[in-house]
């Protein structure tokens, strides 16, 4: 089981490699990837340095080109694919059918992974991408239960990677346009959910308010920590109640499910968080390395250490974690 860690910059990439990642994924400094945030990601020079750092230590490196180009931006995405090929990454993580086709025809030797942004939750969909573009691996959306993940693995030719830890999209990735409904920009089109330039915090007589492009997403009491105003994690009124109508601000943590994931044939565990700091990447990678090693040594007697869990809770959104979709009652 491979540990795949995020890198939003070179120090994070090094932190991931140094702390036990088997593979690191990154993106370029533009809207061709789904973490298009200011000050984040790699130019070609930094990418070359990062790739050489990882490869010289026997680690693999993946590049994400996982947003959806519109005709007006098509060329930029093709150039990103060409860059990935010339950089010599171990795999390209893509979502768009057009871009997968471009990569497959122009760079037949480049390994293709299907991004979570392609919203593929079933083996028929995976067969489509395998038949059409020869994808080697797919990252599953964070919506399937453990038994459903198993079902996909048993009926699929491609390797399966799933999210193990990090911020939790409650929606099917690639099929949520709440962000563009409110701001005009979405992960699919602009590579960012709820982009920072639309975020506003206001101190009012009713408390601190968070807004996204003017839309009130939440009000906070004095003792409450303000969250990032994505629509899916705001508090809204439905009927007579005002509550987290879609999802609490919480993170995914599947540490305790590792043996089951391992026995199901999950090939790789992905850690979310290219936007996080190098210290976070180092800490999270280290814990997951230890956990995966312990699980692979003796899956029957594996138990996550409580120190791992509390350390992960502390760095999580809302300081709490959930097993998410893998745990049936959550659904």
């Amino acid at each position, binding site marked *: 089981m491979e540990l795949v860690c995020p890198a939003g910059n070179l120090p994070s990439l090094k932190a991931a490699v140094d702390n036990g990642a088997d593979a690191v994924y990154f993106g370029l400094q533009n809207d061709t990837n789904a973490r298009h945030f200011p000050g984040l990601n790699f130019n070609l020079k930094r990418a070359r340095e990062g790739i050489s750092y990882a490869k010289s230590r026997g680690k693999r490196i993946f590049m994400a080109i996982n947003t959806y180009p519109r005709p007006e931006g098509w060329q930029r995405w093709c150039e990103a694919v060409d860059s990935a090929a010339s950089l010599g990454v171990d795999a390209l993580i893509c979502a768009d059918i057009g871009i997968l086709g471009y990569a497959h025809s122009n760079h037949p030797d480049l390994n293709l992974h299907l991004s979570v942004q392609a919203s593929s939750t079933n083996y028929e969909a995976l067969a489509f991408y395998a038949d059409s573009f020869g994808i080697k691996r797919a990252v599953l959306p964070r919506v399937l239960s453990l038994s459903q993940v198993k079902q996909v693995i048993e009926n699929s030719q491609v390797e399966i990677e799933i999210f193990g830890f990090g911020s939790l999209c409650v929606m*099917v990735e690639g099929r949520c346009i709440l962000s*563009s*409904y409110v*701001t005009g920009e979405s992960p699919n089109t602009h590579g960012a959910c709820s982009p920072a330039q639309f975020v506003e915090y206001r101190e009012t007589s009713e408390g601190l308010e968070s807004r996204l492009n003017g839309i009130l997403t939440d009000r906070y009491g004095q003792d409450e920590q303000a969250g990032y105003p994505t629509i899916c994690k705001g508090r809204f009124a439905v009927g007579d109640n005002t509550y987290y109508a879609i999802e609490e601000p919480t993170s995914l943590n599947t540490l305790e499910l590792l043996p089951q994931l391992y026995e199901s044939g999950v090939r790789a565990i992905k850690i979310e968080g290219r936007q996080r700091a190098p210290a976070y990447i180092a800490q999270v990678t280290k814990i997951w390395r230890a956990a995966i090693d312990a699980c692979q040594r003796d899956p029957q007697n594996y138990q996550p250490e409580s120190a791992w869990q509390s350390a992960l809770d502390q760095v999580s959104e809302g300081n709490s974690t959930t097993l998410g*979709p893998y745990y049936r009652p959550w659904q």
Partner: protein
Amino acid sequence: MSTNPKLSLGPILFYWPKEEIYQFYEQAAEMPVDIIYLGETVCSKRRSLKTQDWIDIAVKLSEQSDKQIVFSTLALLEAESELKTLRRICENGRFTVEANDIGAVQILHQRKLPFVTGPSINIYNAETLKHLAAKGLTRWVMPLELGRETLQLMQQQRPEGVETEVFCHGRMPLTLSARCFTARSHNLPKDDCQYKCIEYPEGRLLSTQDGEALLAINGIQTVSAKSCNLLPELAELKRLEVDVLRISPQYRHTEKIVTAYSQALAGDQPEDLQPYIPLGSCDGYWHGNSGNL
């Protein structure tokens, strides 16, 4: 050159009682639409109609009228039972199928059947369109967040034999999840949802704390609180040679909306739609802005 587009009735996104669905399609047979999409696209637990019941409605409609009937399929496929139903629909032997997941595209392509793609299939560029056309795509519904500028470029490179459909009217489907937000709003787990969706035939309203109607929750889907309304954009839709204009069914007055579009296409002054859009309309996506504008 400007051509007159056809009108379509999209699949019902909400959960209605069986009798109301039958009534709706009896009325739909008389509506001035050219294409009717039907079937469950949101949640496989909604079984007021079984797959065979939907097929029976489709058969009846096609015998009663000369409308094209298209079978719409589930957008989020998780369980094997859902794939089984999907295969059965794809193999119906009579009606074209609207694929709302790439899994459906795969099944239809393997059986060498032509297909339509719904708005949840991410077709954002002409290369994707060409790839799917080679697999059997005959019509695509433009994803909701794309606008007229993108559409213009897509139309210029559109493969031969592929029609373009635009979601013109109704609450816009914005997301899908594994979680059921309607069950959550009743403090019920999804496994024991008690089919609460049936109490909200246009979704359950979700408002901001300062009272702005933002979304409507519809089981595992969320839709916009406002209704998309592209009726004032008819000239532009025609100029861009859009082939089909989709009207998404709402619980009441769908026939009024269809009639207004039909009147406008005939060059007549359409009836004012505002009384039938209580929470206001929006067309932001079409103009390249936030969807809620």
